[in-house]
């Protein structure tokens, strides 16, 4: 029997999806025309599923900074920061991020995934407790698995359930770390952070917020949900990514806790991996400057997000509970979702297909992510296509237009 035999069922599911080419999990962009347009199968396609919230991937200043760093410092660092040394720009980016979040400390990781893997596996250890939202991203679950803390879950975005779990741990020794996300990546719903912070204060625990999808999106200065909810003082650790609003790749954690820097020699996903290339650091720093200086980016993003959310809701499609740059439409079954997704793609609209068990309710999702760089015309076209395909496939006329239930 092959070593891969255990994947036979997964292989079968994957092959079924591919029957209606292209396979939703193997899309290739032949060309990128702008931050909102590409070419797929020779067709000009609107990109509405790239998490490119501020549209900075093709920003001229970011590219110029990146090119300069590439020419002056080379293509890669060829090693880890601990073993092979940091470049000055790694430190500078950490200082920029700490200043932006008004925190003392920052550590930069090579991906957002590694930031969660590193922080969660290191901050809590044997005898400590991790309390995760049940709908947490895979990187949070994987970080929990890599470490040695006891891991328990509370019901998605349910502060009362969180309270109950902390109460059960009340007399148990060890540090307790609660982990939530600013915006959840599947439905675009926001954590009830004010209430969660209150539970944290009352029960005594540390709180980490993953602002991957909310940095540059929420808050007056773009610092994310903690800023928007007015609870930054209660949030002990913020993790995030460069691969969304900042248009590159990498991750970070900021905090005020004393002694933070010891993590640089304790955190394995930070220590035993190559550091980010200087060209990435340079574009990320420039993107952060844009994010800070240009509030119109956030305003355009919010307008576009609201326009798409309202447009799809008015059509009668089942959208998520909050308008945010992630707008998801739930469909009844997988075969329908795959046909819907294919029809949109053939008409020049790319977005993401998410299937259970990766989705919070047991329904497949068509997941759009809006950008500040989308034109009103592109969003209108997306709404129009959704409407046409929904009618063709018989989705509309039967849908209730009710929000998707967050818990099955």
């Amino acid at each position, binding site marked *: 029997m092959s070593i891969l035999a255990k994947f036979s069922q997964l292989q079968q599911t994957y092959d079924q999806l591919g029957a209606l080419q292209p396979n939703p999990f193997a899309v290739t962009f032949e060309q990128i025309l702008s931050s909102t347009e590409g070419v797929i199968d020779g067709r000009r396609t609107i990109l509405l599923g790239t998490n490119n919230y501020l549209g900075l991937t093709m920003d001229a200043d970011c590219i110029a900074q990146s090119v300069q760093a590439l020419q002056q410092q080379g293509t890669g660092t060829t090693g880890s920061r601990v073993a092979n040394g940091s470049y000055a720009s790694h430190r500078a980016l950490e200082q920029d991020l700490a200043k932006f979040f008004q925190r003392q400390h920052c550590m930069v990781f090579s991906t957002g995934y590694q930031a969660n893997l590193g922080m969660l596996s290191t901050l809590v250890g044997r005898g400590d407790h991790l309390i995760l939202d*049940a709908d947490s991203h895979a990187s949070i679950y994987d970080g929990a698995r890599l470490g040695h803390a006891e*891991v*328990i*879950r509370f019901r998605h975005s349910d502060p009362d*359930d969180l309270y109950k779990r902390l109460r*059960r741990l009340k007399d148990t020794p060890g540090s307790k770390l609660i982990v939530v996300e600013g915006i959840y990546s599947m439905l675009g719903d926001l954590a009830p952070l004010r209430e969660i912070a209150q539970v944290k204060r009352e029960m005594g625990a540390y709180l980490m917020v993953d602002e991957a999808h909310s940095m540059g999106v929420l808050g007056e200065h773009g610092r994310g949900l903690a800023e928007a909810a007015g609870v930054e003082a209660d949030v002990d650790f913020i993790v995030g990514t460069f691969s969304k609003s900042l248009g590159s790749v990498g991750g970070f954690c900021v905090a005020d806790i004393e002694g933070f820097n010891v993590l640089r020699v304790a955190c394995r996903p930070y220590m035993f991996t190559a550091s980010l290339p200087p060209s990435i650091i340079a574009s990320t720093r420039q993107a952060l400057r844009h994010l800070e200086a240009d509030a119109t980016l956030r305003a355009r993003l919010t307008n576009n997000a609201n326009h798409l959310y309202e447009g799809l809701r008015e059509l009668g499609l089942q959208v998520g509970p909050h308008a945010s740059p992630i707008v998801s439409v739930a469909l009844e079954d997988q075969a329908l979702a795959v046909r819907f997704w294919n029809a949109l793609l053939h008409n020049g609209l790319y977005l993401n297909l998410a299937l259970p*068990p990766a989705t919070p309710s047991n329904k497949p999702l068509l997941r759009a992510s809006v950008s500040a760089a989308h034109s009103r015309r592109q969003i209108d076209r997306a709404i129009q296509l959704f409407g046409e395909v929904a009618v063709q496939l018989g989705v509309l006329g039967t849908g209730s237009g009710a929000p998707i239930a967050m818990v*099955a």
Partner: protein
Amino acid sequence: MTDSSENIRVDVIAALKKILPRPVAISGATHIVQDLGLDSLAIMNFMLEIEDRFDISIPLDRAADIATVDDLVLAIEALVKQEKA
């Protein structure tokens, strides 16, 4: 098995029957995933229900070792004892 574990088993089986679409015979030796065909989301929600029912939290590493109804019963019993201690 003690008296308390027998009571726990009755509760666990009742909770499982509630989420199954059809009536199925369930015993202590029933494999929760393999025999009942529940998906991971249904399992997660079932575990959250069980945790509430017994006022315990089952850590994920312990949940990973649970295959049969009796495995779950033993885990619950141990956690309830720990809670009372």
